[in-house]
């Protein structure tokens, strides 16, 4: 007995070739095997990302093989069977042979009445079972004919059971399609594709379209080509998700437990496919032109409609072709991908706009699309699987693709931002937040992974995608951020001193691991990202300790080398500290985004961000900037002294001097951007902290019952991952309470009032502080934010500023609503 029902394409396929014996005991067994294959596949696929780094396409090596074959190999089953499994297989085959010889055909005897008679002898509540089988096992059984548990009842309602059955009975439309039917098929299957990309099961979404089961048997050319294109697209998507290696089970189902049998014959290659899609597009536009000209002659409304519909179809084929070209080129790691991609995206966006402006299908037309049966694969899925995914995206498919094309643009331009880690993380935190689909998140990881590789790999694929060695990347990042003297370009002459060179390499190596984890974090979904951030903090803490020790060591060495003026203090340290603080802040922001915190907890979450993390980050960035400047100056002076000492020609020195000065002035430091962003966030958090604190003092925020509540406990729970850290030191709840009381009491002392926190003065003081911070945030915002984010944050600043100033005047209102509808991190306040 197998608890793992399901089915596999190859299983059902193989059984069709064998003569059916009527004996099906092996079913559970086969299904179990199928499950194991599925696991193999997942494990094998998990290492898939390497292919790109080595410059091999998933189809590049063997040329452009038949897509359908890949589809079935990829989705259906793997080939690696462990030895143990092979042994089991032989054993099983032997048993199977004996069994089948014993009872080839069943010999049924009716025991219906007998059984009732025998059962009546049992006591009430007595269960008669095989050994080791209890009531609890029986409870897990599926109750047949129960509407909620038994999907067998639903299966009877299927209009078409399979492609073959539909074809034989004529219930599946095969030819003479109308333009509107083509449109409906496309629209509905694209909606299904989106559902799959968004995490539903493949068998219940894309493969509810029966034409996909046997595309080679579909006589209609447009539908056939469309089917192959869709299969190719599915394969590209699946491959990207596997290679990106950031999707979780809840984001995307890479493998499907069950797929309808399909043949791999006659699948066109990618190039041939693009050609046939192109010819379909031409056919459609020819039809559109024909109807347009006949409309001009006859002025029949039907001709006009037909022309619009064919035109819409041609646009959809063009869209499909562009999408295939884009993903095909991406999947094959084409050399020209990054050069071609912007034009392809332009074309994609233009086509989508035309589609959105063109002919629209009605709800009935959408539902009446031929060749769809939502329950067609249900019998292949486990009995406990959710019933079916309703096609709910009707008409919205191209809105999804519009958003997708925006995201693709971000992915494509990411490679140019991979100069320094700070710069890239800044890009990910600003533009990158738009990547809300698992597909684009995976693509981003692929671009990162394929652009940055460990040094040993870069030799294998020289020139491919302009690989940068990760250690060079880290060194560049450090140079740009805090300019450590030991990494300066002219420092090489001192490297033979002692162990310095080895130490530098050791530090860079230890940075690679944590950097790759940090970069990967941004590909994960929010919940996983939060967990991963908390986990990687431990490594970052250790790295920070190392960095400080290295800084001390290098400082001592610099003094020994008599390189006066060069200072290594905080050079490595501030870089690691910024990475760490960013990770800590992102941990809390992720919590806000996931809506984990109650309104009554927000004040200390924002306080920790404001007073501890972001405050420290602002200081660190400023310190790094000044260190960069000072070290550069000191280096120049040293250089000049050296030159003078060597009695070199003065002319060349002057020239060099002038150029260095000029370049340092003309190129604005990236710190300005990081600092502006950190300050904006810092003031935002401060503003919200003061506002929420004052609201709490005024009891305008609902708090848990005091007798059941322990804020201290919640404080430690929310900030748990930070507790092991001493720089920046973890701030205890007691200290936070002191800060709060100082704020309230300070004012009390000034005014001479005897009341504490709840006094009107300390409340209005907090509101005014909040208002000040909102204004500051707005001021810093313009320096770095752009587009939609700038507009939203600015709107939030202004709106909240007004509200807190109203509250500061002591105006009476019942309560204040806190809504995270505009921004996931910062709420908008409104009076009730």
């Amino acid at each position, binding site marked *: 007995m197998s608890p793992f029902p399901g089915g596999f394409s190859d299983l059902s396929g193989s059984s069709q070739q064998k003569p059916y014996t009527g004996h099906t005991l092996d079913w559970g067994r086969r299904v179990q095997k199928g499950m194991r294959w599925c696991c193999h596949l997942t494990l094998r696929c998990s290492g898939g990302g390497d292919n790109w780094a080595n410059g091999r396409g998933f189809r590049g090596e063997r040329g452009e093989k038949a897509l359908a074959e890949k589809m079935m190999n990829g989705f259906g089953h793997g080939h690696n069977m462990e030895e143990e499994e092979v042994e089991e297989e032989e054993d099983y085959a032997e048993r199977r042979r004996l069994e089948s010889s014993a009872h080839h055909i069943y010999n049924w005897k009716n025991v219906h009445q007998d059984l009732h008679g025998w*059962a009546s002898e049992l006591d009430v509540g007595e269960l008669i079972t095989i050994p080791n089988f209890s009531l609890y096992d029986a409870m897990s059984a599926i109750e047949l004919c129960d509407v909620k548990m038994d999907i067998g009842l639903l299966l009877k309602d299927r209009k078409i059971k399979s492609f073959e059955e539909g074809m034989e009975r004529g219930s599946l439309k095969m030819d003479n399609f109308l333009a509107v039917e083509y449109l409906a098929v496309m629209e509905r299957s694209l909606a299904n594709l989106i559902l799959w990309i968004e995490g539903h099961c493949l068998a219940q979404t894309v493969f509810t379209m029966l034409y996909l089961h046997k595309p080679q048997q579909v006589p209609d050319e447009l539908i056939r080509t469309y089917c192959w294109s869709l299969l190719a697209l599915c394969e590209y998507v699946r491959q990207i998700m596997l290679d990106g290696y950031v999707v979780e089970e809840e984001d995307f189902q890479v493998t499907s437990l069950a797929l309808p049998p399909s043949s791999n014959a006659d699948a066109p290659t990618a190039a041939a496919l693009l050609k046939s899609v192109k010819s379909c597009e031409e056919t459609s536009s020819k039809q559109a032109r024909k109807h347009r000209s006949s409309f001009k002659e006859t002025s029949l409304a039907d001709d006009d409609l037909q022309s619009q519909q064919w035109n819409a179809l041609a646009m959809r084929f063009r869209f499909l072709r562009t999408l295939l070209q884009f993903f095909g080129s991406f999947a094959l790691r084409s050399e020209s991908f990054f050069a071609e991609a912007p034009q392809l995206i332009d074309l994609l966006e233009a086509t989508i706009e035309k589609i959105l402006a063109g002919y629209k299908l009605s709800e009935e037309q959408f539902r009446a699309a031929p060749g769809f049966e939502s329950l067609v694969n249900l019998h292949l899925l486990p009995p406990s699987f959710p019933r079916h995914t309703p096609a709910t995206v009707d008409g919205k498919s191209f809105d999804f693709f519009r958003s997708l094309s925006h995201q693709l643009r971000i992915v494509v331009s990411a490679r140019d931002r991979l100069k320094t880690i700070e710069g890239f993380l800044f890009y990910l935190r600003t533009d990158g937040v738009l990547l809300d689909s698992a597909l684009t998140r995976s693509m981003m990881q692929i671009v990162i992974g394929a652009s940055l590789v460990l040094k040993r790999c870069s030799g294998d694929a020289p020139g491919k995608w302009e690989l940068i060695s990760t250690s060079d990347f880290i060194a560049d990042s450090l140079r740009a951020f805090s300019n450590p003297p030991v990494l300066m370009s002219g420092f090489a002459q001192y490297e033979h001193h002692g162990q310095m060179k080895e130490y530098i390499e050791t530090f860079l190596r230890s940075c690679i691991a944590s950097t790759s984890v940090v970069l990967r974090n941004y590909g994960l979904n929010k919940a996983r990202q939060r967990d991963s951030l908390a986990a990687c903090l431990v490594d970052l803490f250790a790295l920070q300790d190392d960095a400080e020790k290295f800084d001390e060591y290098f400082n001592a060495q610099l003094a020994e080398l008599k390189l006066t003026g060069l200072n290594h203090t905080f050079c490595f340290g501030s870089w690691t500290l910024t990475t760490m603080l960013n990770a800590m802040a992102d941990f809390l922001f992720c919590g806000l985004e996931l809506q984990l915190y109650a309104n009554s907890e927000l004040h200390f979450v924002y306080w920790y961000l404001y007073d501890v993390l972001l405050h420290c980050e602002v200081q660190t960035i400023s310190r790094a900037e000044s260190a960069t400047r000072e070290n550069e100056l000191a280096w120049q002076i040293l250089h000049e002294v050296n030159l003078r000492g060597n009695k070199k020609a003065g002319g060349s020195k002057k020239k060099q001097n002038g150029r260095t000065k000029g370049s340092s002035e003309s190129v604005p430091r990236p710190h300005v951007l990081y600092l502006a962003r950190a300050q904006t966030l810092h003031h935002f958090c401060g503003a919200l902290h003061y506002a929420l604190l004052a609201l709490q003092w005024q009891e305008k925020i609902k708090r848990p019952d005091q007798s059941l509540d322990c804020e201290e406990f919640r404080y430690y729970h929310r900030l748990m991952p930070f507790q092991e850290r001493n720089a920046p030191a973890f701030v205890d709840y007691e200290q936070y309470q002191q800060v709060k009381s100082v704020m309230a009491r300070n004012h009390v002392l000034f005014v001479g009032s005897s009341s504490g926190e709840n006094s009107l003065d300390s409340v209005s003081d907090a509101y005014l502080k909040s208002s000040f911070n909102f204004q500051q945030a707005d001021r810093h915002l313009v320096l770095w934010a752009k587009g939609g984010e700038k507009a939203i944050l600015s709107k939030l600043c202004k709106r909240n500023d007004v509200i807190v100033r109203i509250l500061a005047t002591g105006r009476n209102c019942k309560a204040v609503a806190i809504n995270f509808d505009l921004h996931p991190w910062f709420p908008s306040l409104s009076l009730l």
Partner: protein
Amino acid sequence: MDQQEDQFYASADEILHPVGVTTSTNPSSAAGKSSPGRDAIRKLFHRELKVVLVDDRVIIGSFFCTDRDCNIVLGGAREYENEADFAGGKVEPRFIGLVMVNKKNTKAVFVDEKAEDAVEGAK
């Protein structure tokens, strides 16, 4: 440790099967009882049963368990849409695993005699 474990299980058993309640969820307690009907049922255990449901579906599975109300539990069950599908042998069954059929949804129950013959033949 073993003693403690035994005590734990003993107490857990008491909670799960309170004294005085006649429901014997523990198969071992029922195993002791014997009557012609019980023996006949025990003979059918592990044999293939074909249950025809009121909506004509055919369920084939290994007989595991039953009770006074003739609720039948089958293991490794397969479902055919109708008798013709089963007899035709061309349609793959749907694998549903462990299932329970109750009396009111059962139209007919068959047992596979062939298996018995094979077993007896082997003896």
